[in-house]
Structures are given as structure tokens and as C-alpha cells.
């Protein structure tokens, strides 16, 4: 290859307006863009004049791939959409498919789904808190939050055999019965975690530097937030108690008693406070799910959808036939379309699923919260400093896999 490196422009001629701007390419490889987000910044000194986010660096074509897989195989792709909230994605897709099938899910499976979804929320918020604080220079927070996250990943591994790509919630129930003694680590986590939350807050809530870096930063008018479709903790920090768990309850959330924490300041600190409060609320839900855990099966009675138990397969002819049919042909989902919403840790997660009656989905579209939440970025960081843009991007808590699909 010949030399193609061009000399950079060292002496930019002043523009007609008189200001000399610098274009800074933040990302796709940058420590604080949480993956491969690229933001082209037009800088006037330290101030951002214009920010243009460029997404798509993590586009994997998951939505298209869904159309080539069986209904039950798609679940493995939903894990990879938002890899920090995989169980929320599993849940959302499963609920959509179950609605199309008209399946009734046994209460124990529903309770376990809620429990796992809330642990996923805590897990995701822990990653957010650690990286958000790390971006602002508070390195230790990262290690503290990942210590607790490790407990959660162990719990997920205990349930599903996987730490990250769980694929545990499936259409028709759960992939496996929970292992014996599964309550013990969950209870230990419940007992321990409130103290850990206090520990985080003792490090940050009274820290003048943290407060100065977060208070009054990253405010966007509520109307604009609604316009671009921002949901989740971001909109709740703006004072709107929008939560799919309350508004369109799914998987039995209406049976649980919990609050939707809100704040009115709408700044980076409010988002931090809302997420911290959400973790406490999630703990309450997990506690209630543990206490009220019903007995019974974890999979629906639907021979054509749910794989039979191994024991039955070895003793009953029908079970063996159903197993063979499901595995080789897949499940036939009645014709129709559905939009199912769950509250993922990042906001409203929606799966729009279309079926033509065959064993493969015709279309699976994901309405991912990261994509919508990222739309507010240009206006959020405009006229702010580079340091603020880091704080704001952290507070948006996007996952690029979720954004690009």
C-alpha cells in the first residue's frame, strides 16, 4: 500500500462568522461511549456546538435473522439485543408469542418471570451505575457495583446455566424448573443488597464533586422528550410516572405492590436518584415474589408448544412424538400480529411480532428503548462542555446492541 496519510489541517482559516470550530470524532472507539457509538462533535473550545450521533456500528441484523429462525429459536437472539437486560427481552418476546398462541402461563412461572425480570433490572442498573461513575472519574464505584453484579450473575447461572445469554424465559413458560434451593442465594442477595445500596449512596450522595457534575446538567424539555419517544427512568426523572408495569401490567405485575419512583429535576442527578430508588423497588418486588411464590408447574399445558419433560418422553409415545414435531418442524403460531410491551431497565421495550401461521415469524420488530433514548442526545449536549456530554451519555444508559440490533 502506498502512503495515503494526508497532512492534517493545522491552520484552519477562520470561518465567516469569526469562530474557529474543531470537529472532534468521539468514538466509535472511545472509553465513554459505552460500546461503539460515534458522536461527531463540533467544538468551540470545550463547548459543544453541535453533536451528531452515528449509530449502526453494532448492527447485527437481528430483526432480519429472526425471520429465518423457528419461533422458539428466536429466543436466543433476543438475549443478544440488550445484553444487559436479556431476561427482559426474553420475557417480552415470550409474552408476544404467547398472546398469539393464546397460552395461559401457570402462576409459578409468572412469579419467577417477574422475579428474574426485576433481578435483571438491578443487574442492568448496577452496570449503569458503575460505568456512569467511572466515566466521571469515580473509579471505585465500578468495582463495588460489579461485586454485587457477580452475585446476580451467579443467580442467573444457577437458574439457566448461563451468566449472560440466559434464554431462560421461553414461550410457554421457563426453559427449566428452577434448581433445588434456588431461594437461598436470592434471599441472601435480598438481605445484603440494601446495605450495598447505602454504601453506594454514601460514596456519591454527599460528594460535592459528584453533585456538581450531575445537578442541573442534561435537562431536556419534557415535551421534547415525549416527542422523540424517551421512556424509562429518563422520563420518570422528568416527573412523568410512565411505567409499563403499571400502565399495561403483564406477567402478573398487577399483583405486586410497588411504587414508580419519579423526580422532577430532569437532570443527570435526578436520573441517578430515580434509578437508585428503582433498585430498592425492585428488591420489594423480588421479596413479594419470593413470599407469594405459588406451587405448580413452570410450563404451560400445551403439547404443541412446550417441549415435554424428559421423563415423559422416555415413557410416553405421545410425548416423544410432540418432542419430535416441535424440534423438527417448530411450533405453528396462528396468523396475526401483536405488539407487546414490557418495562425493561432502560424503558419501554416493545416487540412487534407478525405471524403468517407458519413455524417462523414473518416479522419481529423491536422497539428498543436505547434507540429512542439516544434520540435526545444532540439537544442534550448542545452548548454543554465535553465533560458534561460524558455525564449525559452515561445518564442515558444506552446499550449499543439494543440500539443497533
Amino acid at each position, binding site marked *: 500500500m502506498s502512503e495515503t496519510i494526508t497532512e*492534517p489541517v493545522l491552520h484552519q482559516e477562520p470561518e465567516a462568522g469569526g469562530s474557529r470550530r474543531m470537529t472532534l470524532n468521539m468514538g466509535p472507539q472511545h472509553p465513554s461511549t459505552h460500546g461503539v457509538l460515534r458522536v461527531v462533535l463540533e467544538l468551540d473550545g*470545550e463547548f459543544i456546538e453541535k453533536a451528531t450521533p452515528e449509530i449502526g456500528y453494532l448492527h447485527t441484523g437481528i430483526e432480519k435473522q429472526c425471520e429465518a429462525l423457528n419461533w422458539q429459536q428466536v429466543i436466543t437472539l433476543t438475549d443478544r439485543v440488550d445484553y444487559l437486560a436479556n431476561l427482559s427481552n426474553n420475557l417480552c418476546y415470550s409474552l408476544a408469542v404467547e398472546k398469539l398462541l393464546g397460552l395461559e402461563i401457570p402462576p409459578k412461572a409468572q412469579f419467577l418471570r417477574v422475579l428474574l425480570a426485576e433481578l435483571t433490572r438491578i443487574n442492568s442498573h448496577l452496570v449503569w451505575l458503575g460505568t456512569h461513575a467511572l466515566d466521571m472519574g469515580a473509579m471505585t464505584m465500578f468495582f463495588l457495583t460489579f461485586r454485587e453484579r457477580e452475585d446476580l450473575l451467579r443467580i442467573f447461572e444457577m437458574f439457566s446455566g448461563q451468566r449472560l445469554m440466559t434464554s431462560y424465559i421461553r414461550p410457554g413458560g421457563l426453559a427449566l424448573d428452577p434448581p433445588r434451593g434456588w431461594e437461598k442465594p436470592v434471599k441472601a442477595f435480598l438481605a445484603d443488597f440494601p446495605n450495598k445500596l447505602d454504601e453506594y449512596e454514601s460514596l456519591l450522595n454527599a460528594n460535592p464533586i459528584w453533585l456538581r*457534575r450531575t445537578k442541573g446538567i442534561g435537562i431536556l424539555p419534557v415535551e421534547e422528550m415525549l416527542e422523540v419517544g424517551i421512556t424509562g427512568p429518563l422520563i420518570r426523572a422528568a416527573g412523568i410516572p410512565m411505567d409499563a408495569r403499571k400502565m399495561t401490567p403483564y406477567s402478573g405485575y398487577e399483583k405486586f405492590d410497588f411504587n414508580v419512583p419519579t423526580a422532577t429535576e430532569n437532570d443527570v442527578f435526578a436520573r441517578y436518584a430515580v434509578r437508585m430508588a428503582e433498585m430498592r423497588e425492585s428488591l420489594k418486588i423480588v421479596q413479594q415474589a419470593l413470599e407469594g411464590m405459588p406451587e405448580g408447574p413452570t410450563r404451560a399445558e400445551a403439547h404443541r408448544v412446550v417441549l415435554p419433560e424428559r421423563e415423559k418422553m422416555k415413557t410416553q409415545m405421545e410425548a416423544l412424538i410432540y418432542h419430535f414435531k416441535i424440534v423438527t418442524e417448530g411450533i405453528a403460531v396462528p396468523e396475526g400480529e401483536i405488539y407487546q410491551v414490557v418495562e425493561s431497565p432502560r424503558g419501554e421495550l416493545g416487540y412487534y411480532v407478525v405471524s403468517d401461521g407458519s413455524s417462523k415469524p414473518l416479522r419481529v420488530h423491536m422497539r428498543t428503548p436505547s434507540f429512542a433514548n439516544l434520540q435526545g442526545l444532540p439537544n442534550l449536549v448542545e452548548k454543554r462542555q465535553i*465533560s458534561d456530554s460524558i455525564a449525559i451519555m452515561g445518564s442515558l444508559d444506552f446499550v449499543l446492541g439494543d440500539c443497533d440490533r
Partner: protein
Amino acid sequence: MDFILLSILKTAIAAPVLLGTLAYLVWIERKVLAHVQLRMGPSRVGPHGLLQPIADAIKLLTKEDFIPSYVNHVYYWLAPWLALMFAVTAISVLPVGPIVEIFGVKTNMGQADISIGLLLILGLTGMGVYGIALAGWSSNNKYSLLGGLRSSAQMISYELPMALAIASPLLIVNSLNLREIVNGQAGHVFGIIPNWNAIGGLQIFSFIIYLICAFAETNRIPFDLPEAENELVSGYNTEYSSMKFAAFFMAEYANIITACSVATTLFLGGWHPIIPNELGGQFIPTLICFFFAGVLFYHALNPARPSDRLSMGVIGAIILGLGLLFQVPVVKELAQPLFWFASKAGFLIFVFIWVRGTVPRFRYDQLMRFAWLVLFPAALLNLLLTAFVVAAKSN
């Protein structure tokens, strides 16, 4: 002739000690930070990662020295060595002990004993900003440029309150010679409270202001904006690799050592013991060494890992020997002041690392506002009050 020989001899001792301290400061920082953050820190190279600095040095020396084609070569080459040179030179005027007599030769413990020692240190640390600013500018990288700009503004701003904070103890001692400043803090009030500048009186404020400025001068969290890796990737040293990068790294740690040593000299009584020698202060170094040796021996007898049995035992024996050394008649004269100086400076360095593990980073404008609207007036007021007190006392 004697002077030249003596100077060469002292340099021959001081330079390796300084470089060794620099290397092991990295190890200490990584270990302390790791334990703050629930980690192990370096543990693979040698017992407890003790050989890690050597491995790091070999790695950095043998790495490809990559120079991007678009840099301004002269300044790109100059910047790291400029930074390192100023940082290391500043240490030469620091006295680590009183004037001692060894083998009939009277000499001060320290490289140079000049009458304007403090001014020289201020000047050299002030020049240190050139290394960073030139690096940022000559790299022709936008992140580096932003880092260089930030550091120029930051270091110049914090130089001012720092100089004012330093000026107050000067008023009291009425000398710029660092040895005389230390000697002004000799003795104990009521025979027990150390007569240090930082204890009692207004100078506690000078000490605090100086320490805050030192954090900014050495580019440490919460003032590490020039190299804020989460914002500017790595700031001014983004385009540097191999030994040139190591030079910046060493310069940063040399600056920390200088800043902590200056704080010790000006405010913490330099080499003077914390407890008067009449009350047994001279046995403290030995007792502390014995304590640590005891802890290490305990771990050698109850090893967490099989290798601890040997490594802990050997290190414990070395520390035990060191403790005994503090009581050997001739060596004592040298070792005791050195111990007090090193332990005070070492404690301050520990504070630097501790803070790094605790607090987030300032924003650029907040940092400048803090310098000009909080530190500068405070330092000025402090200087004024000190001047009044000194004037009132002398009348």
C-alpha cells in the same frame, strides 16, 4: 574538589534511589488502589507482584516507539524528556536530613543546599507544564490538544494559590532555604506537641491549600483533567508510546514525590521526629519496623499461599534488620531523619492514592472557578493574616 566529589557521590546514591522509588511508587499505587477497590493488584510477577515494576520497565523499553507521521517532531521528542527533567531536578534541592558528619566530612543530607531552594522548586514545577503543553500541541491530535490546553490553564491557575500558600511559612521563617525552614520547625511545644507549621496557628490553612494545589499540579484525581481518560482518551500522552510514554509516567510520579516532600518540608517539620527524642522518639522507627516485621512473620507462619512462607519471612527479616539499623550509633544519625522524612512524605503520597480511589473528577470550568474564586482568595487572606501575626510578634 571535595565539593565536586561529594556531589557526584550524593548523586550516585540519590539517582538510583529516586528511580527505584518512582518504580515502586507505581507498585504501591496499584496495590493500595486495588485494595481500596476490592482487588488484588499486581500479584503475578514475583511475590506479591514485587517485581512488577521491573517487568513494566522491560516492557516499556522494548515496545515499539511508534511516532505518528503527523507530529511536530522536534517538540514531540522534546516534551516527555522536558517533563521528566524538570520533575526530577526539583527533588535535588530537598533536604532529607540535617547537616551530618560522616568520616570527618560535614555535609547536608540532600543534593544541593542553596539559599533559594524554594524558589527553584516553584520555578521547576512551573516549567513542568511545558512538557505537557508541548506534548499536547505537537502531537497534532485533537484529544491531546484539548489535554494540553486544559493542563496549561489548570497548572498556571493553581500555581498562584500554591505560591501564596508557600509564602506564609516563608514569612515565619524569613528564609527561602529549605533547611532553615525545617529547622524553624524543630522542637516541641510544651515538650510534646511538634512545633510544625501545619500544627497550630494559621499555617494549617496554608497546608490544606498547598495540598489541594499539589493535587492539581500533579494532575491527579480529582484534578486529572489533562489526561481524563474517560473524556480525552488519554489526553496529552495519547500519541506517545514506549519510553516516551514512560517518561511522562515517571514525571507524574516524580512530581508527586516532589509535592509531598515539599509539603513535608514546609509544613510537617521535615526530618524532625513526631515525638521528642527525650520521650523515646528515637525508638519509634525501630518499634514500627518491629511491628511490621511481626505482622509479616505471622503471615509467614500462617501462609495464605505456600509461597508466602518464604517471601513474607524474608521481607520480614529485612524489615527487622532495618529496625535494628535505626539504633546503630553512626548509622542512626543518618537513618533516623531519613525515616521521619520518608514516613511523612509517604503518608502524604498514600493520601494522594486514597483520594484517587474515592472521588470523581471535576469539570473544567468548575476546576478553574475553584482555583480563582475559592483557593486564590483563601490563600491571599491566609497570607495577609500571617503577615499581621508575624508583624505583631516581631514588634
